[in-house]
């Protein structure tokens, strides 16, 4: 029971941190891609959109190559640590948050920016207003980012190594128990994973829909 709690908490910590980092990086970059007017904008948008569909196992492979003891970032000694899983999960969820942020802001009435500036908003105040206006799809971006990492297994397995009490998370534990033929335990862990994912998304949905209900 203690081990199950530890695995569950570690899963939440790793995926929660990865989602927050992705939000910190993806919100500004997605905003820049949506509102900016620079030559390579379309190329960057295409790259981000491609990144939204990156297979976790490929991300795991690339992260492992980077963090491997003889790799370029091997000196950091991160391979087979929770930090390595966070790095891999950020690479998975960051394009999701960035792409959905850009799409949410591009869906707003384009003249809203001009209207805010024409009423004396500074650039930052204008961006803050647009984030507020797009808060429902932005929360959906956050949920999608979290969903993309809490449920992935390939990258966590490859860079975390599924080490008991250290890097074992719910998804890698499910793979292990299935491999051992412990289908009952694997199913239980799967149910727990679904329940936790539901709880987190339910909390975010309540926040999201509160804004919507106020409009009526």
């Amino acid at each position, binding site marked *: 029971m203690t081990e199950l709690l530890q695995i569950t908490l570690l899963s939440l910590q790793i995926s929660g941190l990865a989602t927050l980092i992705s939000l910190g990086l993806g919100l500004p970059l997605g905003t820049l891609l949506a509102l900016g007017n620079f030559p390579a904008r379309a190329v960057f948008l295409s790259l981000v959109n491609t990144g939204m569909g990156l297979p976790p196992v490929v991300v795991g492979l690339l992260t492992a190559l980077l963090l491997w003891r003889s790799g370029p970032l091997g000196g950091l000694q991160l391979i087979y640590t929770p930090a390595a899983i966070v790095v891999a999960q950020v690479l998975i969820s960051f394009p999701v948050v960035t792409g959905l942020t850009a799409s949410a802001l591009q869906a707003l009435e384009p003249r809203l920016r*001009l209207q805010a500036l024409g009423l*004396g908003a500074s650039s930052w105040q204008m961006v803050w*207003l647009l984030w507020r206006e797009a808060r429902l799809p932005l929360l959906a971006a956050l949920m999608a980012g979290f969903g993309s990492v809490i449920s992935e297994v390939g990258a966590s397995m490859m860079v975390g190594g599924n080490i008991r009490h250290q890097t074992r998370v719910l998804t890698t534990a499910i793979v292990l128990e299935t491999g051992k033929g412990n289908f009952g335990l694997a199913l239980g862990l799967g149910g727990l994973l679904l329940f936790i994912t539901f709880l987190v998304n339910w909390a975010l949905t309540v926040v999201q829909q509160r804004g919507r209900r106020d409009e009526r």
Partner: protein
Amino acid sequence: MSAEFLQVQALEVWRGGKLVLPPISFSLERGQTLALLGPNGAGKSTLLLALANLIPLRSGTIFFNGQALARQKPLLYRRQIALVMQDPLLFDMSVKDNIAQPLRWRGLPQAEIHQRTKQWMERLGISALAARRAVQLSGGEAQRVNLARALALEPQLLLLDEPFSALDWPTRSRLLDDFSALLAETGTTAILVTHDLGEARRLASRLGLMFSGKLEPPGIPDEVLRCPASAQARSFLGL
């Protein structure tokens, strides 16, 4: 003193490699209302955005209060004006917050924000809607909030892009009466884009006709209507 409050000299705007506003010059004294009248696509809204410093100028100079715009910080200039667009484009918040938000952007004290918000909701007859969300308003109510939001800023220059065009006639007539009285009372300098001659005559002390990006020299409305400067103007006015 009749020094020009706003002086536009050879202002030229290009968009997407195309000339959309050939050199335009005109001036306006404090307290005057200039109506820019012309058919759709004449460049009236583009001129308004250029005057709001929201699109880049290819060349030309705008003097505001005797100072070249290029020498002023864009934000400081934009905080002395207010832009009202054709669609209300209200923010997704309550009526009261919509009016208060641009005042908050200016960092005004809370008491002053409250007082101005209350005052302008009363002046525009929308106090009863204070707590209502913007999405729940009718077209006429939304436009009143839009005008209150701009007027609460007590701008030195009010730029209006066809704010009454989407309203039904009774609503429009009532709002025009109210707005005309408010302009006279506050002495606000304004530039109004419209394609409605009646609206222009009702609100403006100066009238400028625009065709294909070119602005004919603005003058007193009755004079412009009596002696149009071009065949295009005569045709547009049905003379």
